[in-house]
C-alpha cells in the first residue's frame, strides 16, 4: 500500500515528527511504500542541516535523512511555509539575496501542490501534528 505522510510540527518541540518517523520505518519494514513525506507548517523546520542536538538524544533530521537515503524517500518541504520560517536551500537563498542557506540535501523544496498530489496518488494520507 502507498502512504503519504504530512508532518506539521518542528523537531523536538512536539512528538509529531518522531511518531511519523517510527510509523514510516514500520511501514517500510512491512513492505509498504512511502509515496511522499510532506513537511508543512513548522514541520519545515525538520529539514535543517544545522541542528546539533545533545549527544545522548536522537538527531531527528539525520534519522529522516538516513531513512530517506535507504529507501529513496521523496521528502518535500513546502516552499511557502519554509520561506516564512527561514528555511532555504542554496537556490532559494541565491534568488532571494540571502547570505546563507540551511536545508539538508536529503530534502527538496517544492510547492503545496505536492501535498495534494501526494493525497491523490497514495492509498492513505496520514497527518502528524499538534
Amino acid at each position, binding site marked *: *500500500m502507498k*502512504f503519504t505522510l504530512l508532518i*506539521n510540527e518542528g523537531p523536538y518541540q512536539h*512528538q*509529531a515528527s518522531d*511518531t511519523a518517523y*517510527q*510509523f514510516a*520505518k*514500520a*511501514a517500510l*519494514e*512491512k513492505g*509498504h511504500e512511502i509515496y511522499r513525506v510532506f513537511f508543512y507548517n513548522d514541520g519545515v523546520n525538520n529539514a535543517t542541516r544545522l541542528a546539533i542536538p545533545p549527544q545522548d538524544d536522537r538527531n531527528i533530521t539525520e534519522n529522516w535523512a538516513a531513512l530517506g537515503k535507504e529507501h529513496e524517500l521523496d521528502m518535500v518541504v513546502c516552499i511557502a511555509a519554509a520561506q516564512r520560517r527561514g528555511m532555504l536551500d542554496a537556490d532559494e537563498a541565491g534568488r532571494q539575496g540571502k547570505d546563507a542557506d540551511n536545508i539538508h540535501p536529503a530534502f527538496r523544496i517544492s510547492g503545496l501542490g505536492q501535498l495534494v498530489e501526494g493525497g491523490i496518488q497514495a492509498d*492513505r*494520507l*496520514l*497527518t*502528524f*501534528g*499538534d
Partner: protein
Amino acid sequence: MAMLHTVNKSPFERNSLNSCLTKSKEGSSILLIEDAVVGALKGTKVADDLTAAIANKNVYVLGSDLNTRGFTEADILDGIKTVDYAGFVDLVAEHSNVQSWL
C-alpha cells in the same frame, strides 16, 4: 470498511478526544498515540467516556507511547487493545481511511 481515527493529545488537557468520540461512527476505530495514551488509564475522570466508546467502537493505544510515560497494559481499561508501530501500520491499511484529530 470503517474509518480509523487517531488522537494524540491528553483528554485532560484538550478537547480533541471528545471531538473524536462524538464525531466518529459506530464500528469505527480509535487509536490513542503520544500524550493521548494517558486517556486509556483506569480510574480517570474520562474512563466512563472511554468505556462507553468501547461498547461500539474499537479502541487501541500505542504501547510504546504508554511505556514511555511509565505505564503498561495492566494500567489501562479493559477492552482497550495495545498495538506497536507495526500494528499502527496494519490499522491504517485495514481501515478505509484515517483521520487525525488535532
